[in-house]
């Protein structure tokens, strides 16, 4: 038999929950919630800071322009750069914060979070992960960054032109690294080259002296590595320190300050999307001008990507508001596929049926702490 006191306590608790839920709903009705699922601690935390800075500038511009009827709030969850962190973070963003639009990075994180976001009708926009299987991951999962298959396709002709016949591949054993290895293994013979050796590393590895010895032993003409975060800088430094003098090549993850500022990174060749800060279109001009004024430095491609991701939300939500349609995941996807082309930083960005942006790739070489376009 249920006691009277128990019944009263249960009723009070239910009433409190109901009130809290209504209070929360009332709060959310007043603003759009954008969630971020970035690594904010640990060896990849540098990316979280960079990604967030780009998003924040776009939010400031949306507010300045009074683009939307409601303010936009940013809610952050730490993905820790791991699939587990991605799944937990997306669950919280969708169910507790009631985010309608989320910014995400890292291939493993994206793959873990995408089913949860899709189930909850939350748009997920990736501006940092480049694993090729991020294309078409879910209808509400879009990419504002070209994926690594495009980057590798761009570097292959350059390798051929350099006469690199033997290429060693050092890769982190996760979805991104495995995809890079798979593509290099398949594409090198067609490019007149061979795989001198493939060397996998754990995402947590920090010592590469022994691996440098193995790479030297494989006598490559060039070394391609696919890693990210602080590990990239450790790889570059330790390969150079341990006598690997061949050209080091990587992808767009190298566009972070810790790689740029590393003395041993001089000569590093890397691919990345075209980031031309001299473009004269008003969106790029404003972004670059405000960025330089605020940070006294040039932005990176990651800043550009997450700025674009938030700007895209502003433009989609603005169109939906004008048409008196609800601003939710399905409506935003329909609007993205209807409009397709948007004025973004770096020029007009066009999206395909899978929500992938099309941006050309360029080849850069690190020289004196700056990236020089070489192809």
């Amino acid at each position: 038999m249920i006691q009277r006191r128990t019944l009263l306590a249960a009723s009070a608790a239910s009433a409190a929950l109901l009130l809290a839920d209504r209070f929360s709903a009332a709060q959310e009705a007043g603003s759009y919630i954008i969630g971020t699922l970035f690594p904010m601690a640990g060896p990849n935390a540098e990316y979280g800071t960079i990604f967030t800075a780009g998003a924040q500038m776009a939010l400031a511009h949306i507010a300045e322009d009074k683009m939307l009827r409601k303010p936009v709030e940013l809610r952050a969850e730490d993905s820790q750069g791991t699939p587990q962190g991605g799944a937990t973070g997306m669950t919280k963003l969708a169910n507790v914060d009631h985010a309608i639009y989320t910014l995400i990075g890292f291939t493993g994180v994206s793959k873990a979070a995408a089913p949860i976001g899709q189930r909850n009708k939350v748009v997920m926009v990736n501006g940092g992960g480049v694993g090729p299987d991020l294309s078409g991951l879910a209808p509400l999962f879009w990419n504002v960054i070209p994926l690594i298959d495009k980057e590798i396709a761009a570097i292959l002709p350059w390798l051929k032109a350099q006469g690199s016949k033997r290429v060693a591949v050092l890769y982190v054993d996760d979805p991104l690294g495995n995809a890079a290895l798979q593509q290099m293994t398949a594409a090198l013979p067609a490019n007149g080259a061979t795989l001198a050796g493939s060397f996998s590393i754990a995402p947590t590895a920090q010592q590469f002296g022994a691996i440098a010895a193995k790479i030297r032993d494989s006598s490559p003409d060039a070394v391609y590595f696919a890693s990210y975060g602080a590990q990239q800088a450790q790889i570059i430094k330790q390969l150079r320190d341990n006598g690997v003098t061949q050209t080091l090549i990587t992808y767009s993850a190298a566009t972070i300050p810790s790689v740029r500022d590393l003395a041993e990174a001089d000569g590093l060749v890397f691919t990345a999307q075209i980031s031309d800060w001299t473009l004269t279109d008003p969106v790029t001009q404003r972004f670059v001008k405000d960025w330089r004024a605020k940070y006294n430095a040039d932005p990176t491609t990651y800043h550009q990507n997450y700025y674009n991701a938030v700007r895209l939300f502003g433009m989609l939500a603005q169109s939906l508001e004008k048409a008196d349609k609800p601003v939710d995941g399905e409506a935003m996807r329909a609007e993205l596929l209807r409009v397709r082309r948007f004025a973004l930083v770096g020029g007009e960005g066009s999206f395909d049926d899978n929500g992938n942006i099309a941006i050309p790739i360029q080849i850069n070489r690190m020289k004196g702490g700056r990236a020089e376009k070489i192809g």
Partner: protein
Amino acid sequence: MLLLQLLASGIQTGLIYALTAAGFALIFGATRIFHVAHGATFALAGYAFLETAVAGVPWPLACLVSLVVAVGFGLFMDAFVYRPILRHEGSFFTVFVAAFGMVVVVQSVLELAFGRSFVSYSSTLTRATAVLPGLYLAPIFWVIIAVTAAILLLTGVFLGRSRAGIGLRALSENPELLRAFGLSARRLSALAIALGSALAVPGAVLMAATSGLQPSIGPHVMLISLAASIVGGIGSLRGAVAAGVLLGVTESLVVSILDTQWSESAGFVLLFGFILFRPRGLLGQPVPR
């Protein structure tokens, strides 16, 4: 020649592990405090060295700054974290959680102060050149050997010959007896933590030059220290040093027969092997049955 190269790389990595583990082993051996914050001491020492060296301060002075920071942090932990806990309750778990919390605090402070990026000390000493066909060694290889030998010798002389050193060894055996001899267990405990923290400095400086640092390095360092302390024999300084070298060499040599990604795991397989088949470690006391 590949095997010789891998052995040399393993010795270099292993000696840095040894220097990293020595401080933790000394503190735990003398005080039985599970000083998880040793990783934070290491990170603070490394950043103190890097930031002062990058600011243009000569490296010996930067090492001194690093030493002051490391010892200061160790004494702070002793006076304001361990001492109050041990005075009231003193459970192993409380000390562990408090120390682990401090690791998180230090990591956040470093991130706020110096950013979350990877940083390293660039030196020509770390550039390897071919000494034999296929064998590359950097000058820092010899520096690491010399520093480790000197530290082992000095610490051995201190612990074996000085009154304070003998007191430190007695501290873990019988603190009550120490009092009978007019020695203060509290002071000796502080001395052990100060000395152990000072031992983090060479490892931190050498790691800043060879592998670089990041604010989240503390837990990684702690993991290595713990593994080396268990493999070497709980509380044995020499055992920790020997185990550090053994771990480094194992991680390096294993890539000659297995895929390179097993390098890090190999050290922990070795650890499990010791736990199962030789729980006393390399130079530890026999485990009573």
